[in-house]
């Protein structure tokens, strides 16, 4: 019985040590920094994708940029799910979560389609899908704080 008690106490102690590390909620500042990094990636990759079309960068890199945009869009979808207010997010993100969430899902699906089309047919095939996939401004106008000049 004593051994059993010791074992149980040991287990409880181990659980107390490890559990908070596994299930602890992220700090709000971390969540905001994390999603800002994803948005930075999206901004930089959208600019680079455009550069490949304008002859300012290697044309064959178009697909690589489309692929990263698709991945970053899928990351962004997850990054907002903790619903942490602040950063550049307007309160409307949380007030109209269903609409925001729907737009993010469309963004992830459309960029994934853009990347697949580029993988199969290159920039020429994918270019007509760009405008429909990169709807950054539509979402930013409604849900992002105006950028400081």
């Amino acid at each position: 019985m004593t051994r059993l008690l010791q074992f149980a106490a040991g287990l409880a102690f181990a659980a107390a040590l490890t559990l908070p590390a596994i299930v602890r909620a992220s700090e709000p500042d971390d969540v905001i920094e994390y999603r800002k990094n994803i948005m930075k990636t999206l901004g930089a990759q959208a600019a680079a994708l455009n550069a490949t079309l304008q002859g300012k960068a290697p044309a064959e890199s178009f697909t690589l940029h489309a692929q990263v945009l698709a991945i970053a869009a899928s990351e962004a979808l997850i990054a907002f799910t903790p619903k942490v207010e602040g950063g550049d997010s307007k309160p409307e993100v949380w007030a109209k979560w269903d609409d925001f969430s729907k737009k993010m899902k469309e963004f992830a699906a459309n960029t994934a389609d853009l990347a697949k089309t580029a993988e199969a047919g290159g920039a020429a095939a994918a270019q007509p899908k760009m405008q429909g996939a990169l709807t950054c401004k539509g979402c930013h106008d409604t849900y992002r704080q105006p950028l400081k000049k």
Partner: protein
Amino acid sequence: MTSFVKIVGGFAIVAVIAASAVPFVARADDKDAIDYRENIMKSLDAQTADLGMIVSTQIPDDNLVAHTKALAILAKQAQKSFESKIPGGDAKPELWANYADFQKRMDDFVAKTADMAASAEKGGMPVVMEKMVPALTCKGCHDLYRVKK
């Protein structure tokens, strides 16, 4: 004498126009190439920072594999973006002087980030923790080839 002064003056004007026009054209092209590779480096930095936040348990690991995949593709983009060999930006002159070494380091970076991404899908966090340091050798290369910030 007056006409000599006029001729010299004329030459001077032509020289000023030429001096201002030629570098302008060169700068415009160079700036595009530099902006382009800086966008890729920004994306690498943002995705690395986010992967670091996941590994240090500040953020849940839902996007773990996505970040490793993005990094593998971004490494390929980076490798291609330097092939134009345009000096300037944050690239030290040593980058072009030791281009074979730089290229070898970029090849390693591409191979190791690809390996980390492939392993992450199967092995998750423990594998990423093992492969992250040898794959993300950013500092080693920056110390040699990037202008100090």
